[in-house]
């Protein structure tokens, strides 16, 4: 028997495969598809202090080997999430739950994380610092090490649960930002969020997305995500949740070798609702082929000679 388990900030996951935030609703909606308890963890839709409608539609555009979304953090607000969605998920799922928290100011992030921290149904907090910073001129908190440090410090004070900071890939130096988050007290790093992208409808001569730009994800971004996981693994000593284009067991292993302790699966699960399950089922035979019995032995293993 192979051992698929990994440990994230002290929380044991039976396997490292997690549906990515924003691509699996609040989880319970999909309990009729398969037993959610097969998953390594569930990551909830990005949640903000106040309810949000999100952007106007079209919110989705196609891309080569990927998709662009501009959902804009549609969610019913943290209170509704904690009072309705998390309990609904807990009825059908007993494993680790990751709350993904968005915000537009340091205070908002801190207030929202504090609420999530107090909710017994939640095990890990993932701080999404890719949202535009209203006080900082519209660039995201994830765009600079200084802003990242500020928000992580404030949130760290407000929460005791394992805190993962989810980084934006749209930066010059991802390692510097990861280091700032570690210094500010993060227990782990999640990466990558989507790559800023757009499409234009050549017949209408205007952007496809109502929001003009959106975030690219899916297989197209995998080599960029892998590189960032590699760089961040070198830069910090806290665990990494790797994501960006993971679509099969081979991709998951590649992410682990680059330094991820667990992987999140986004776009692939939108195309194939059973993607996470198929990745989990694909790991044991792949491990056998690779001669590995303990999956966690692969974490960062490609760094050995570098």
């Amino acid at each position, binding site marked *: 028997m192979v051992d698929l388990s990994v440990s994230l900030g002290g929380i044991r996951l039976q396997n490292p495969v997690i549906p990515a935030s*924003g*691509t*699996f*609703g609040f989880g319970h*909606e*999909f309990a009729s*598809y398969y037993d959610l308890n097969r998953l390594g963890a569930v990551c909830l*839709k990005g949640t903000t202090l106040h309810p949000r*409608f*999100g952007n106007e*539609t*079209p*919110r*989705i*555009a*196609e*891309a*080569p*080997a*990927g*998709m662009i*979304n501009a*959902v804009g953090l*549609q969610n019913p607000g943290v209170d509704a999430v904690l009072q309705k969605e998390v309990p609904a998920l807990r009825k059908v799922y007993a494993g680790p739950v990751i709350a993904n928290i968005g915000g537009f100011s340091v205070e908002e992030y801190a207030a929202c994380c504090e609420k999530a921290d107090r909710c017994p149904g939640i095990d890990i907090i993932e701080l999404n610092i890719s949202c535009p910073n209203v006080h900082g001129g519209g660039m995201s908190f994830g765009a600079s090490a200084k802003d990242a440090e500020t928000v992580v410090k404030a949130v760290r004070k407000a929460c005791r649960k394992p805190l993962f900071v989810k980084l934006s890939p749209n930066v010059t130096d991802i390692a510097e930002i990861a280091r700032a988050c570690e210094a500010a007290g993060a227990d782990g790093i999640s990466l990558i969020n989507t790559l800023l992208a757009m499409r234009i409808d050549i017949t209408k001569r205007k952007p*496809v997305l109502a929001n003009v730009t959106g975030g690219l994800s*899916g*297989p197209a971004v995998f080599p960029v995500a892998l590189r960032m996981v590699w760089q961040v693994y070198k830069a910090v000593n806290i665990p990494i949740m790797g994501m960006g284009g993971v679509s099969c067991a081979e991709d998951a292993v590649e992410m682990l070798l680059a330094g991820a302790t667990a992987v999140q699966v986004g*776009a692939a*699960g*939108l*195309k*194939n*609702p*059973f993607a996470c399950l198929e990745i989990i089922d694909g790991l044991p035979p792949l491990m056998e082929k690779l001669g590995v019995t303990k999956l966690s032995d692969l974490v960062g293993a490609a760094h050995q000679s570098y």
Partner: protein
Amino acid sequence: MNKGIYSIENTRQLAKNTFLTRLAGDTSAFCAPGQFINIALDGFFLRRPLSVCDWDGEGLTVIYKTVGKGTKALANLPAGTKLDVLTGLGNGFSVETSGLRPLLIGGGAGVPPLYGLAKRLIGKGARPVVILGFNTAEEVFFEKEFAALDCDVTVATVDGSYGKKGLVTDVLPQGTTYFYACGPEPMLKAVYDRADTSGQLSFERRMGCGFGACMGCTCRTKYGAKLICKDGPVLEKEAVVW
């Protein structure tokens, strides 16, 4: 929702840039006309959503306009090609509230789901009145098929090259008990504005998943934000906000 492998039985052209494809495979996930399928196509990341035109125990038909690269690729696939398809998506039309003389209004690529709807309305004893709107004669399809169901069919073309000249709203009949509409949004809006009965309207949105996971297809309604792929594509007239 069901995910399965479906085999193309045949594809034939119905009208200009309009094709009908019959897929063989499991149809147990369908529970109402107006539901849709989401087809994965080689070389494209996102699936292509298409309303089910009709289905039976062995398979289903879709009718689609070749508007872009994906639908063009689909129309060119040879019989026998295996496709990865999600079926039984969305809510579909409810036939409960139709009354005896429901009005079915389809515009262009919105016509197909009305066929499966008409069949089921007739099955429960209604006699649908059908209005099909197209731009021009060479785009007209399925008039005969609706007539063969013994529906009362009117075709309208914008340029008057076939049937009545004008928009579907220019040829609305009197005395219908309810309406069902599917077509481009300006048509839906016009129908909504002119309708003197209650009814249901089927909407389209660009979709990231088709089964309620991405919130890509959100639509404002009187009852809050709804997902076109899951809470729709059919909305009650009373819920619609323009």
